[in-house]
């Protein structure tokens, strides 16, 4: 059974010509699936979350969460939903414990009967129980926010960029927690701007300008990459970027860590050595290395939307 279904969802703001969310067709998130949404800032990720979390109404289209309509049955949805906004939005003038108690009582629950769900996360917060939430570090705040959105054992969890501004080890911990929750059967929808995190999802939707460009498992997305991809280095990386972009066989060139990644145009009949040779002789680059590589998720992401 599908946990979340979306049908032609559309939402515009004010007189802005382009809709913030414009999903044509049907999409579904299965029960117990870890569903990732990746996309640049302004892609419409947060708006989509807010629609699904029943905070705003869509202009057109319908969506269901656990079989409940997001407009008609919003009150029931709110009892089975956990939502963690991108911005820290707990009471900074209440202590860690008080925040947790408050959000438990909001859902008519108490902490003790629901503690197994959050125990793994909360054990790290326990030494700071009496501290005001506003005085926690960024990673601790995120942990507390996660605890508060899990305290009522929701069946669906929405996390809007949960790892933005969190250190790498806390990020890893958070993803371990999410995997654990998924294994318990919870449906989790998470948005992120980090590609390495997208790899941990069961399904990834790449989002841009309010639309899902692809929805697939990370391995299938990578497998579907149909261009030749080169990794290029030289001693003058800055000029190299410009020179590569000026070559007629190159479709796209972008920086990737300490190398440049280049995709070649369809049917461009050039060899790796041919490009390396031209960069040396025609453009005067030294220390040139060109290798043909297989695509990562980030390469797929960078080449989206040009099709």
């Amino acid at each position, binding site marked *: 059974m599908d946990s979340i279904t979306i049908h032609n969802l559309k939402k515009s703001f004010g007189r802005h010509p382009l809709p913030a969310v414009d999903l044509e067709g049907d999409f579904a998130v299965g029960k117990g699936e870890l569903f990732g949404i990746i996309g640049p800032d302004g892609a419409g990720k947060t708006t989509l979350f807010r629609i699904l*979390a*029943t*905070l705003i109404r869509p202009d057109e289209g319908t969506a269901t969460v656990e079989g409940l309509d997001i407009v008609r049955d919003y*009150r029931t949805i*709110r*009892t089975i*939903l956990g*939502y963690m*906004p991108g*911005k*820290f*939005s*707990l*009471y*900074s*003038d*209440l202590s860690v414990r*008080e925040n947790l108690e*408050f*959000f438990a*009582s*909001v*859902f*008519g629950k108490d902490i003790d009967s629901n503690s197994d769900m959050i125990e793994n996360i909360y054990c790290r917060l326990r030494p700071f129980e009496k501290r*005001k939430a506003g005085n926690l570090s960024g990673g601790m705040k995120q942990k507390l926010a996660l605890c*508060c959105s899990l305290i009522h054992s929701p069946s669906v969890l929405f996390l809007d960029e949960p790892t933005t501004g969190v250190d790498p080890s806390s990020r890893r911990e958070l993803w371990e927690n999410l995997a654990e929750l998924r294994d318990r059967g919870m449906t989790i929808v998470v948005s992120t701007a980090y590609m390495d995190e997208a790899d941990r999802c069961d399904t990834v939707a790449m989002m841009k300008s309010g639309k899902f460009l692809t929805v697939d498992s990370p391995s299938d997305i990578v497998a579907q990459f149909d261009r030749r991809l080169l990794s290029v280095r030289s001693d003058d990386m800055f000029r190299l970027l410009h020179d590569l972009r000026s070559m007629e066989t190159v479709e796209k060139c972008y920086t990737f860590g300490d190398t440049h990644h280049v995709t070649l145009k369809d049917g461009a009949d050039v060899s790796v050595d041919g490009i390396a040779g031209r960069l040396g002789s025609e453009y005067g680059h030294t220390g040139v290395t060109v290798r043909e590589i297989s695509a990562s998720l980030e390469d797929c992401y960078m080449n989206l939307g040009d099709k």
Partner: protein
Amino acid sequence: MGAFGYLMIKEAKQFFGNPFMPMVLILLPLLLMLVVPLAANMEVRDVRVTVVDRDRSVLSAELTDRIFESGYFVPASYEDTYDAAMDELGRGNTDIIVEIPEGMERTVGRGGNAEIFIAANAVNSTKGSIGGGYLSSIVTSFSEGISGAGNSLPLKVVPQFKYNPHIEYKLFMVPALMIVVIVLVGGFFPTLSIVTEKEKGTIEQINVSPVRKRDFIFSKVVFYGILGIFAFTISFLIAHFVYGLASNGGLLEIYVSAMIFLVFMAGFGLIISNYSDTLLQSVFMMFFFVLVFMLMSGIFTPVSSMETWSQYVTYCLPTRYFVNILRAVCLKGSSFADLQFDFIMLSVFAAVINAVAVITYRKQS
């Protein structure tokens, strides 16, 4: 325990968790009621007078003495010419000039009339007019004294001031300050608290929970309403025991009107919070309206002394009715029967503003 219960507990934890807020709650009525009436005093004392005595006679010296004996005036300087005295006035070293004409004693001795000239600095209009008035009455009584028998004028006016026998501005002011307490605690506090939750995004977390938004708003209004009544009680106790107001009872009238006004302020604050997304916005809006409420409704200056058009405006301000009720009950000992019109108008305002609050609130959500 229902949703309302734990929302109230949350408000209380937030409010009392911060030591600053409870202190404000106590200090606000204390300072307002004890310090402000002393400072904001309209009584005129120690008016500085410059005397230009061009007569230099026994009679002119007697007149000068009489002026300074009164206790309202202090000598600033003695000048020879009016122009020199005017210079002093221009520099702000003196408030009033008294010019005694040359040959006054002689003229009066012959049975003629001499004119004493008084010039008052009216930049501070109260000081100018009241000081000038005091001074001319001193001169008049002095002239009665020298014109002989003292009963030369057959009619004498003996005024008696009812309800405020010593015409103390304090007593006029204190009921108005009790209103300020309700405006601040019952109106400002819940509005700012709602807008803070909007600004910080905590309202989002509440919105995705099963808690109804109206319970959420209502918990704040009720919580700060209770605090408002508490602060009002402090100020009422001070009004009663320090200033001796409401000595004839009227407790019920005072609290009923305070409750109605509190309901009005809560509804008003809700409208403001509906339309503002940031704290700054709401503070500005609130301040603007509260200033109009305060300055144009006869809280600090009598309505009867306003321009005609602004007298009509006061009918549109609920504070006018509330301050009427408080003054009438505190100073005159009036009861419900005497104040029907004010109570009805205040209730109408509370009902209308809350209806508007509910309508605008629906539109927003």
